């Protein structure tokens, strides 16, 4: 078991390094190949070639790409000094650099946006996990019934409808028509729990609907498959009540694939839900990254991407561990 964990851990770290290299390459090499100068992006309206050149030197854009990558990685691990003429800016680890537009350090910016995305992701995850799984079970147990068909149609709508449509409808209905929920801007959980939940609820539902649909379908399919298994027949042959057969024996098997995709989905949403955050103007990581993309603020885009990759890799790692706990057959191999 320990060896398994260590092996997975090493793989995860290697994966992150590869992701960072590729991302770095994409964001800094591609503008260069296109003939654009990252220093010019930083300089903005300053057009004096000498000024742009000195910016390039300061940020290290004149060096070869691998050296830049080395500096970047060093910054991530131990921090980095930017030589700014007479004075030196120290950027503490993990250093993702400074925003081209606002000169803010990227890392505190990410940390600042994280709670919003976390609030959105965790809340929505609770909804989609419970809602989706439950709908799937009901659907499977009443196969071919009206309930089953209704759930599956809603699920189909859920995966098909874009977030910017369902999101706006949810806003319109819950906030503006029914006045059940307060509109307005995001408030932190510890400042005003009620306001936090009220503001986030339509966003949770919108995001949850997208994922719940997948979960409902997966749960339904797995449940139907499991109910045909010999060990379910064995459970019935023991004289177990049907309720126990479903909730204990069948659910135990259905649980496994659900946990797997749940981990991965949660990991990817934690990296930022761009559409949902944009529609509900939630100042999370998704909003940060999409704004940065439009402003060509490369350090922030890079930071957001790596941060998101970090969550996905961590989620993968945790899912692998959890899998070993859930499925006894994994442990030996």
């Amino acid at each position, binding site marked *: 078991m320990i060896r398994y964990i260590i092996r997975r851990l090493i793989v995860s770290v290697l994966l992150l390094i590869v992701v960072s290299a590729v991302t770095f390459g994409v964001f800094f090499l591609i503008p260069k190949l296109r003939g654009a100068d990252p220093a010019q992006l930083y300089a903005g309206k300053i057009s004096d070639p000498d000024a742009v050149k000195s910016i390039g030197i300061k940020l290290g854009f004149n060096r070869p790409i691998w050296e830049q990558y080395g500096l970047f990685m060093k910054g991530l691990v131990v921090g980095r000094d930017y030589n700014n003429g007479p004075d030196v800016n120290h950027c503490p680890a993990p250093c993702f650099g400074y925003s081209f537009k606002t000169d803010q350090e990227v890392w505190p910016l990410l940390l600042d946006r994280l709670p919003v995305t976390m609030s959105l992701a965790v809340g929505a995850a609770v909804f989609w996990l419970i809602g989706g799984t439950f709908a799937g079970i009901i659907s499977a147990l009443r196969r071919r019934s009206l309930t089953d068909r209704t759930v599956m149609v809603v699920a189909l709508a859920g995966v098909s409808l874009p977030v910017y449509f369902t999101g706006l409808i949810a806003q319109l209905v819950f906030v503006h028509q029914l006045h059940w929920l307060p509109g307005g801007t995001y408030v932190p959980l510890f400042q005003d729990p009620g306001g936090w939940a009220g503001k986030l609820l339509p966003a949770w539902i919108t995001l949850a609907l997208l994922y719940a649909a997948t979960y409902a379908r997966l749960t339904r399919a797995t449940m139907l498959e499991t*109910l045909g*298994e*010999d*060990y*379910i*027949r*064995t*459970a*019935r*042959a*023991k*004289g*177990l*009540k*049907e309720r126990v057969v479903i909730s204990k*024996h069948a659910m*135990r*098997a259905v649980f*496994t694939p659900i946990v797997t995709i749940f981990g991965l989905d949660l990991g990817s949403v934690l990296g930022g839900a761009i559409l949902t955050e944009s529609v509900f103007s939630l100042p999370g990581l998704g909003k940060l990254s999409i704004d940065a993309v439009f402003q060509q603020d490369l350090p922030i885009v890079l930071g957001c991407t790596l941060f998101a990759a970090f969550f996905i890799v961590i989620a993968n790692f945790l899912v692998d561990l959890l899998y070993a706990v*859930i*499925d*006894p*057959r994994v442990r*030996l191999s």
Partner: protein
Amino acid sequence: MSTDLITTADAYQGGSTPGVPQPFLDVRDLRISFQTDDGLVKAVDGLTFGLERGKTLGIVGESGSGKSVTSLGILGLHRGIGRTSVAGEVWLDGENLVSAAADYVRQLRGKKMSMIFQDPLTAMHPYFTIGAQIIEGYRIHHQVSKAVARDRAVEMLDRVGIPQARKRLDDYPHQFSGGMRQRAMIAMALVNNPELLIADEPTTALDVTVQAQILDLIRDLQVEFGSAVIIITHDLGVVAELADDILVMYGGKSVEYGTAEEIFRRPEHPYAWGLLGSMPRLDQEVRERLIPIKGTPPSLIHLPSGCAFHPRCPQMGRDGIPCKTEIPTLAEGDRHGVACHIPPADRRRIFAEEIAPNL
């Protein structure tokens, strides 16, 4: 054959005749069918048999002959299959299970009647330990603490010959070998001392040496508990070893039913001849080849007209015999019933002159 050998098939006339006590298990005209997208599957079509405590019935037939569905029907497990309908009567110890409330039958399941399934790798839950699965089976029917049930599970594993039972209790099914798994499955089925035990192909997935051990085990346990046992198999060797009575199924119907002695010595149905002919025998000279039954088992949706076996029957085509048009019924003889249109005297003659010398 001694004249004092009285078995269930001798005494049983297929109905409750006044004065004749009803056997422990009394199945009458059992019909099980399910609706599929392709049509109505008549898996079991008018099956009648009886079984006393302490006796063993072998149900023999090819795959798709309805033997497994019969066992599921007795246990009431067809209810989980879907659009299934069951007609007829299944009397267990004086109670008709077909008309009984589902929850009542559930309470009997695993306790009064239990089942050993064919493939213990798929029949045991992969995510629960062997011990947990046996303990669960015991605690459904006994209000005891986990510790008591655990001791009982150890006792059962011991009984079926699993070494270091207390330690192996916490293993998962995939950590057991095939034979061990089948033993554990048997321990699970016997944990509540069932009065009726149904074993569905209990040795099919096992290698030959283990097969013999498992059959011995079932027989020992039967003697110990005095249970009635139904062995479902396509392997005549298995029934030869264990069964008092044999019921040969074909196309959802019983085509021959009698004592094991009769069926092995004087089988009368051409299908039973076919089964015997395709069975390897070690106690005789090596034959040139086994004689397979030609063709494949019929679809239970579109059974052949008349006698379902007629397209494969080597005896087909005799004058004046309505094989293709009339369904033969299981005529009850003094010893055994045969569902075949060929007159009994002819059947015995054909067997004695043409079939037996080649077996």
